[in-house]
């Protein structure tokens, strides 16, 4: 399997959050298929960029949900990748 690029990993993580509506950090790490150190790096980047946010669930547990900007990223992912490929950036 080819090594995933940064944008692809972010797309995959956001896709997992989108499919589950809300997810705890540990299952998200497990499903994202990357090392925990890299996950931490991507996770804080996605928080900084406001793609995801953490909220409190019914039992006061920490849950990760997708923001509007995160949704936008998923919508535009193909366009971004096509553009980067087209102009060899």
């Amino acid at each position: 399997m080819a090594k995933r690029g940064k944008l692809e990993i972010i797309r995959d993580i956001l896709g997992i959050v989108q499919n589950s509506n809300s997810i705890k950090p540990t299952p998200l790490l497990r499903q994202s298929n990357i090392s925990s150190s890299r996950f931490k790096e991507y996770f804080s980047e996605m928080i900084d960029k406001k793609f995801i946010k953490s909220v409190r669930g019914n039992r006061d547990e920490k849950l990760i949900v997708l923001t509007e900007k995160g949704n936008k990223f998923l919508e535009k992912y193909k366009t971004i990748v096509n553009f980067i490929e087209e102009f060899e950036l």
Partner: protein
Amino acid sequence: MPYHNIGRGVGRMMQEVLIGTLSMEILYSFVIIVCSLMIYFGTKELYELSGHKGLKYFRMTFLFFAVAYFFRSFIKIVIVYLGKQEIALVAPILFGKLPIFLFMYFSIMAIFYLLYSVLYKKLKHDRIHLFHLASALIAAIIIFMGGNLVLILLINILLLIFIVYVVYLSYNQSKKKKTLNLYMIYFLLSVFWILNILDILIPNVLQGFQLLIYLASSGIFLMILYKVVKKTGAN
């Protein structure tokens, strides 16, 4: 026919030619500045979402082009067409060397950023500050060496050789060989840009080809804008 009538006729004709070239200059600058800003703002969302470095350098290229063309039209319209002497007497630095320096700096930066957008992945460290330094240095040398045409030509030929080398290298290392057309666009953009620089630094040298250069340059910018709009789906 009395001599003063002939003189008046020639004067009117000269005025019409001046208005014609001035309109052409304004239209040309308008097309390039609008195209560049449309590319810059059209890719804003993609960059904000991805934070991709290549996208940043690509966008900055066109922002620099817009600024450079602004100073180019300022030099051409205000200084060349509306009488250099009178304006230069009022504020020689503000209306003389400063706009030429800024035009040179931003135009060389635009070309360097374009090259850097396809090169940066091959470099281990971020070297963009070196390009800022090189642009400022080249612009300063050209300003201080003022009327030395040989030096101006030499610097531009060296710049062109550097651009051709980088474009050729990037094309050879490109994974998808079908992108010759992109590299050809970049190459032509650089060639016509250098012709634009020569047009400013050595007035009248390209007079016979001015319209052709303007049409070709506008065509290249419109082609890139078309590619950007097609890929971003921007309206």
